[in-house]
């Protein structure tokens, strides 16, 4: 049977017409088998375009992941949000155990800072601290003054119903100093203020204290009880505290 099948298929051949048509089709499709060489000019344009796109996308990514402002939220948890030029939260960092816990609990990364701020301020941890007479401090610092002013204004709106919430601005240069001490910007500002009154205080001590404890300590030592008088979020319309009574630049 194998032979019969072989014999049968042996009688089947491709028609010459079919071969000729196929050859003609291929000649047409390949432009008579001419190799298309991409000219040097087009190669250069293509390479430049690719390079440009690469630089653009790399630059875009770098821009996106570069913080232009930080928002420090301190009460007992100390959390710092890194904000990029597109008003997106690109980092959420806790500066104490409670801060780490809060940062893990509230998923605000890559969201708009207004949403993130609302989520953090209205979180159960923060509202509980506030109801226990905690002092909420929101500090804004950054290289983009306009953005910082907007953030501060939004932070005030966000905490307008809270009596013990304070919003203020810090200098951009103080961000790095704060991080070197292992403190959030908000706590670092409080540390500087307390240090001016009591030079024995250390960043480690401050790190373990709640904002209420720091405030009470400052108030007990301070000759005049002016702390944040004009900084209550629901009272201050001016926005920032650069050069206020304590002389720490915030």
């Amino acid at each position, binding site marked *: *049977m*194998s032979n*019969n*099948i*072989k*014999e*049968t*298929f042996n*009688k*089947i*051949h*491709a*028609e010459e017409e*079919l*071969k000729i*048509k*196929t*050859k003609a*089709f*291929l*000649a047409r*499709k*390949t432009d*008579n*088998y001419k*190799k298309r060489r991409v000219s040097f000019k087009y190669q250069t344009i293509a390479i430049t375009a690719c390079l440009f796109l690469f630089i653009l996308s790399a630059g875009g990514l770098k821009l996106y992941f570069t913080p232009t402002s930080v928002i420090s939220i301190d009460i007992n948890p100390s959390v710092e949000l890194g904000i990029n030029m597109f008003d997106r939260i690109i980092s959420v960092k806790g500066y104490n155990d409670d801060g780490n816990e809060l940062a893990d609990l509230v998923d605000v990364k890559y969201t708009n800072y207004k949403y993130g701020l609302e989520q953090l301020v209205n979180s159960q941890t923060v509202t509980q601290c506030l109801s226990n007479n905690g002092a909420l401090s929101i500090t804004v610092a950054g290289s983009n003054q306009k953005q910082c002013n907007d953030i501060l204004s939004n932070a005030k709106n966000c905490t307008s119903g809270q009596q013990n919430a304070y919003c203020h601005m810090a200098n951009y240069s103080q961000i790095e100093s704060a991080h070197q001490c292992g403190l959030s910007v908000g706590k670092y500002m409080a540390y500087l203020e307390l240090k001016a009154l009591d030079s024995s205080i250390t960043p480690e001590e401050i790190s373990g204290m709640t904002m209420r404890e720091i405030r009470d300590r400052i108030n007990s030592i301070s000759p005049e009880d002016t702390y944040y008088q004009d900084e209550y979020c629901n009272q201050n319309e001016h926005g920032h505290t650069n050069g206020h009574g304590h002389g720490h630049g915030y």
Partner: protein
Amino acid sequence: MRSEQEVNTAIERYSDTIKRLCMIHLKNYADTEDIFQTVFLKYVLSSVCFENQEHEKAWFIRVTINACRDLIKSFFRSRTVSMDEIINLPDKLPPDNRQILEAILSLPPKYKDIVYLHYYEGYTAVQIGKILKKNVNTVYTLLTRSRQMLKEKLGDIDYE
């Protein structure tokens, strides 16, 4: 891209094989023409380096079978019936050969390739498995079943 001379040699060498595979899968001349164009254009543009002629032949068989399957599955074809959809058997085929060919063409598609590759091209089950990307045991099963089906259609003849 391959040279014209290379392509013309391949057309002379493999046209019959492609024609036979087209015949067992397709039912009209226009489709066969399409497959010829598709397969050889793929060859022209392909940069595959063939180790030897056997390797090249296996490539043509696999590409042709895949092209036939794609054509059969194509959206347009699945919804239209060609006016010249008739079994495209050669006119001068003797009655005995015609009977065998009709028996092979009446097999379900998955058996036709196996029968052609084994009985005509002389490939072993292992080689067929490699060409069709099928398990060797599956090829054995398909061969056994196709043998039985051909036996029923053509009577008791030696199929080995």
